[in-house]
């Protein structure tokens, strides 16, 4: 697994950083936080046109740039650094990922170019009231009706669900349960019978919505359910989508943590109490050192996971939950300690610490809490392995 970025990748990072620093300064984040859409369509268009980010990691065949998860990781790290308010994670990572993993070739051809160009924004509607990010948590039923399907039920925690042009819905066939019978559907954002409500979120920089489906007409985008078809194909596509999303989120989180650590260390160098910079006191100094250690570990893990996702081999299954759990913990701890090191000013609204703190707490729970990911990792680790292998 390659764990260092090439000079070209570092140059790419610089380009992305420059763009984001220009277009997503703190004042802009604070402005967009208070809006309903939660992002600036003009910036989105520019980021699509100039850098092609929405399709960066999508195959060229579908209008993307064909880069790997490693480059995607770089982009997400940079977005995490500035807390970019944009539908990137919801549309390019989650929804596009679902289409890529689950949809038929025809549907990929139809839908992905729209997302890759940034022209359309999609949302993945997976989670329901129980808050589970897995196949078994899906109870919304897609009932076959003449030539299509009818969706009835509720989805929630849907990133950008209230503004998306297109909603990708994970639903199950009537009578199925667990990992069986899952399929993916597409619904226009303004479909009849679809009620969308923006939710009030802890992290105002990433919007979520609740979607209520009452007899909504939907297209099935995943493969046909023929007699011989694998009933678990949908669940597998979902699992791949979520692994990929977990890796992406880990990279985004690590960017925020790194930025926050830099800000905090800078503050510790300049803030004077008792006639000395507070960073000369071991209490603060060792906290910073410990954060550096954690952030460096988190970076390695995020990079490893991104490389594993790019290789798409056996390592991904363990790397994804490992990265999601470890980086979540580091990200939240970094945010909490940063506030503590800043003292009173860190607890104010006007200081940016809290924006990172809320993003960290929210990302910790998005796609499942760390303990769930650790449980998954442990299950994989403890499977009986072939003779002698004791890693």
């Amino acid at each position, binding site marked *: 697994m390659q764990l260092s970025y090439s000079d070209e990748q570092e140059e790419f990072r610089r380009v992305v950083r420059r763009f984001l620093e220009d277009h997503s300064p703190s004042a802009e984040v604070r402005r967009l936080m208070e809006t309903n859409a939660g992002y600036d369509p003009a910036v989105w268009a520019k980021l699509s046109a100039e850098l092609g980010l929405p399709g960066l990691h999508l195959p060229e065949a579908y209008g993307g740039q064909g880069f790997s998860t490693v480059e995607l990781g770089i982009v997400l790290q940079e977005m995490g650094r500035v807390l970019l308010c944009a539908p990137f994670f919801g549309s390019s990572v989650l929804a596009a990922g679902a289409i890529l993993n689950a949809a038929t070739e025809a549907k990929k051809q139809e839908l992905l170019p729209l997302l890759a160009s940034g022209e359309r924004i999609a949302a993945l509607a997976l989670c329901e009231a129980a*808050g589970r990010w897995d196949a078994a948590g899906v109870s919304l039923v897609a009932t076959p009706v003449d030539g299509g399907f009818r969706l009835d039920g509720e989805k929630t925690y849907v990133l950008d669900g209230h503004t998306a042009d297109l909603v990708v819905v994970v639903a199950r066939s009537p009578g199925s349960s667990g990992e069986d019978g899952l399929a993916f559907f597409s619904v226009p954002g303004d479909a009849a019978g679809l009620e969308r409500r923006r939710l009030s*979120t*802890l992290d105002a920089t990433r919007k979520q919505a609740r979607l209520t489906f009452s007899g909504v007409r939907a297209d099935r985008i995943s493969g046909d359910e023929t007699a011989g078809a694998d009933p678990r194909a949908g669940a597998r596509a979902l699992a791949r989508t979520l692994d990929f999303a977990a890796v992406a989120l880990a990279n985004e989180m690590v960017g925020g943590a790194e930025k926050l650590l830099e800000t905090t260390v800078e503050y510790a160098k300049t803030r004077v*109490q008792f006639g000395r910079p507070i960073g000369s006191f071991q209490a603060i100094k060792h906290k910073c050192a410990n954060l550096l250690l954690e952030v460096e570990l988190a970076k390695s893990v995020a990079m490893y996971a991104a490389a594993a996702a790019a290789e798409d081999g056996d390592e991904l299954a363990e790397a994804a939950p490992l990265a999601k759990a470890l980086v979540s913990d580091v990200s939240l701890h970094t945010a909490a300690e940063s*506030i503590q090191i800043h*003292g009173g000013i860190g607890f104010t609204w006007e200081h940016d610490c*809290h924006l990172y703190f809320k993003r960290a707490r929210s990302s910790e729970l998005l796609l499942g809490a760390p303990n769930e990911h650790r449980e998954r990792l442990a299950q994989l680790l403890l499977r009986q392995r072939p003779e002698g292998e004791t890693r």
Partner: protein
Amino acid sequence: MSEPSEASVRAEVRAWLEAHWDPELPLREWREKLADSGWGCPSWPEAWLGRGLPVALEHVVSQEFERVGAVGIAAGSGPWLAGPTILEHGSDELKRSLLRPLVTGEHTWCQLFSEPGSGSDLAGLTTRAERDGDEFVINGQKVWNTSAHHADYGMLLARTNWEVPKHRGITYFALEMKQPGITVRPLRQMNGHASFNEVFLNDARVSAANVIGEVDRGWTVALATLAHERRMVSLRREGPLPGRGRALDEAREEQAHVMAPYVWYPQRAGRVDLVLERARETGRGDDPIVRQEIARLISLARAATWTAQRAREARGRGRPPGPEGSIGKLCSSHIARAAANVHALISGADAMLSGSDGALDGIIAEVLVSVPGQSIAGGTDEIQHNILAERSLGLPREPSVDTGKPFRDVPKNVARPARDPGRGRAGDTT
């Protein structure tokens, strides 16, 4: 008067209340009676609105007031902080003019201690007071000032001498807040509440007669206030007043006003009280991992409670106070942090939502974004660790680089741009 006993005090206060308590009195009128009788502040001297009772007998008076549902003196930092400080260090003239209105609630007070540039290092403050005839002229900025937006007076610390070490050039003033040189702005916290203020002092003026204690000797006076503040925090446990009547209605209104800034404090402390209920309600108590964390949290919370109780009992046995103050403060940080994590573990995805969409109508979200304040406000965890190590364990202090030299020569924070709200705040990017 012979040495008062618990029984004699109880009989006396009971008789007085029987004769005078009338829930239908206007609040101010009742408070004047309290001030006249000395029953409002029974441990204050008889000459100054009190009855000179030992502190140990104060609770007898409280019990009797509670028994008949009588209103006591005003709430807030006036009678709790300013009053005792003035009693101990103020001139007779200040006692005469300031004590009665703060007991009756006619005047409310705020504290003007912390500054943007001096948080943990309070004695490093740089607000300046310059003598101008019979007055001092004040310039600087204060922060974290609860109730400053409606206070009549402020307990102000300002530097009057820059040529001496930092603790020896500070003066303590009773500052009239309603004057042109003072601007008060609410300060919003990360949880959205704005319960503190920033106070900008631009050529504010205070009479030299309003110095509490002596010029340049204000640090000792400040320590007295801080000691009373710790006592106040440990005693504050005010439920709503029961009963009907004009005095009671007015007192409830006053209390609501005074307590408004503290409405999110239970969330800041982590709402341990909700954990078991939430675990049952959500079914998350079925998860062994959740159970472990709940057990840890409740164990810690109980251990903290029992430690406070142990200290109280020991003091009751006449033993010297121990490290319980800082331990309690540190425990509250640990508990708040742990509780927030347990709440997040229990609520899961729901904890991503806030307000009426959020778990328990947003209370859980408010816990999550309030607990970081617990380990900062009122003395950071780092400061508490220093106190425990130095005062309780006797470990040596760090070599000081600032206490030995003129404050003028001590490195300080680069001044943030003056933030006269009238002139906009664009330059501030802290």
